[in-house]
């Protein structure tokens, strides 16, 4: 079976400065890959490049093949059909990832109706509404009929992120990209959201590209990791082996920092 996402020799430039260089990674259906590194190491840019959504002014070179199609150099109009079918994305800050003036039920309904239309089985009216409520139930939101009528500012951070996940699931994607999906949440909510993602990815046999700087979270979520530093992949391998026996100094320093943090927590009276 061919890879769902195949990135080879990706290079992202902003004018004269290179932000990501020589990055290669590949992901098959059902696989989970973690992309780790500190802020500014090019993790999020890589995710945006994978969907062809780099901000204006940034240029990508190399090859990004998503579901058998080359993304780099393909006009936006053709990529629109690929997005929301092959791939969907979850963002770090769920408040800004939702339209503040639209009821969340409608925000989930939009991608749901679009995917249904593309599949040739258009949904509308009561059937669409039922599908929305079903999705809200899938992401374990309480009282879906009431929540569907709420605006984003009326929900908690964890509830908003569940809505964002429901929106991504509505696309029925083969690949789910989660860009620091738990960073903006408190620790308890983090654990719930991670468990939810884990269950959904397994149930729906999706591939997961998980971006984070939180090593314990990554270790529990993915099978393989790629460690990014200054836009270059310094180390890649199975998550257990890489974290147990890091070869690169940068990976060692990341792990040491995480360990110091844990020790500080345990050392507390």
């Amino acid at each position, binding site marked *: 079976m061919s890879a769902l996402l195949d990135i080879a020799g990706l290079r992202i430039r902003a004018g004269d400065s290179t932000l990501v260089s020589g990055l290669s990674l590949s992901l098959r259906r059902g696989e989970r890959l973690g992309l780790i590194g500190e802020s500014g190491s090019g993790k999020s840019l890589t995710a*945006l490049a994978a969907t062809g959504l780099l901000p204006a002014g940034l240029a990508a070179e190399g090859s990004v093949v998503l579901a058998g199609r080359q993304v780099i150099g393909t006009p936006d109009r053709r990529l629109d059909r690929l*997005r929301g079918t092959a791939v969907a994305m979850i*963002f770090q800050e769920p408040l800004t*990832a939702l*339209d503040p003036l639209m009821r969340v039920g409608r925000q989930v309904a939009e*991608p749901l109706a*679009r995917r249904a239309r593309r599949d040739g089985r258009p949904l509308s009216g009561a059937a669409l509404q039922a599908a929305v409520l079903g999705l809200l139930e899938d992401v374990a939101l309480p009282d879906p009929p009431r929540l569907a009528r709420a605006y984003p500012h009326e929900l908690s951070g964890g509830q908003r992120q569940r809505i964002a996940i429901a929106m991504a699931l509505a696309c029925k994607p083969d690949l789910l990209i989660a860009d620091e999906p738990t960073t903006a949440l408190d620790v308890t909510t983090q654990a719930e959201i991670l468990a939810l993602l884990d269950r959904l990815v397994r149930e729906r046999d999706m591939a997961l590209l998980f971006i984070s700087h939180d090593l314990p979270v990554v270790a529990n979520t993915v099978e393989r990791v790629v460690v990014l530093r200054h836009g270059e992949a310094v180390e890649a391998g199975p998550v257990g082996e890489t974290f147990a026996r890091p070869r690169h100094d940068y990976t060692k320093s990341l792990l040491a920092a995480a360990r110091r943090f844990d020790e500080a927590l345990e050392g507390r009276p």
Partner: protein
Amino acid sequence: MSTVAVTTPPRRARRGSLTLWAGAALVGLHVLVGLLTLVWLPYDPTAFTGGRLEGPSLLHWAGTDRLGRDLFTQLMIGSRIALEVGTGAVAIGAAIGVTLGILAAFAGSWLDDALAATLDILIAFPTLLIAMLVVAASDTASLGSAIVALGIALSAIVARLTRILARRVLVTDYITAARTSGSSWPKIVLIHVLPNIWPTLSVNFALQFGLAVIAEASLSYLGLGAPPPNASWGRMLQEAQGTVYTAPLGAIAPGLALVSLAIGVNLLADGLRDRIDPTRSGR
């Protein structure tokens, strides 16, 4: 009494609805009068029905002008014309301005710079001056040409505001989220960008409605607005100017009418904005 205090709605919501109702009442009054002029008028606006420069009386509620025509009749017709001018000019200004503004926000690079610079130059000229140029360029002065001229003059302001607001919405995460889920640009403009810039735009439209009504009065005052027998408030002001010391009501009445409509539209827009925007209402 404590029970009364508990059931009183939050102060903000109460003030919001008061604004809305006051605005609706003022605008509604003008709309009613405007509609009434289509079917009934106290006098023929061009007929000499009384003595010259009479004061208010039972026969002539607002007195008569220097030719003995009924002023109240002219004021009523003025309401209709002001509403036509305001609505028409804002509609034209919004159609041109929002389209240009959205295009500029999307265009990026040199096209955006070119549009932005053009708009800045246009805005540097007073609205009235641009409107006068447009009227002068058309063959004859008519109500229609005044409306189109004001609409074009207002569109530059709308376009620039739309461009700034839309650019701010376009960089938000929910637009990126909609893009990753496969929304096309036209759809994103329709369901995300326009609703999110609407609250600010609508208040601006209300301000411009008032601006257009006043500008039309100025155009009429200069003889470039609606020609007779269209009794616009501006023309009434112009005609009353020579007799303002002997019969001040001829100038005061159309002035008050103008101010009441402009204030009414602004209150109405403020109230509507508070009602529409879910993050502002005291739900």
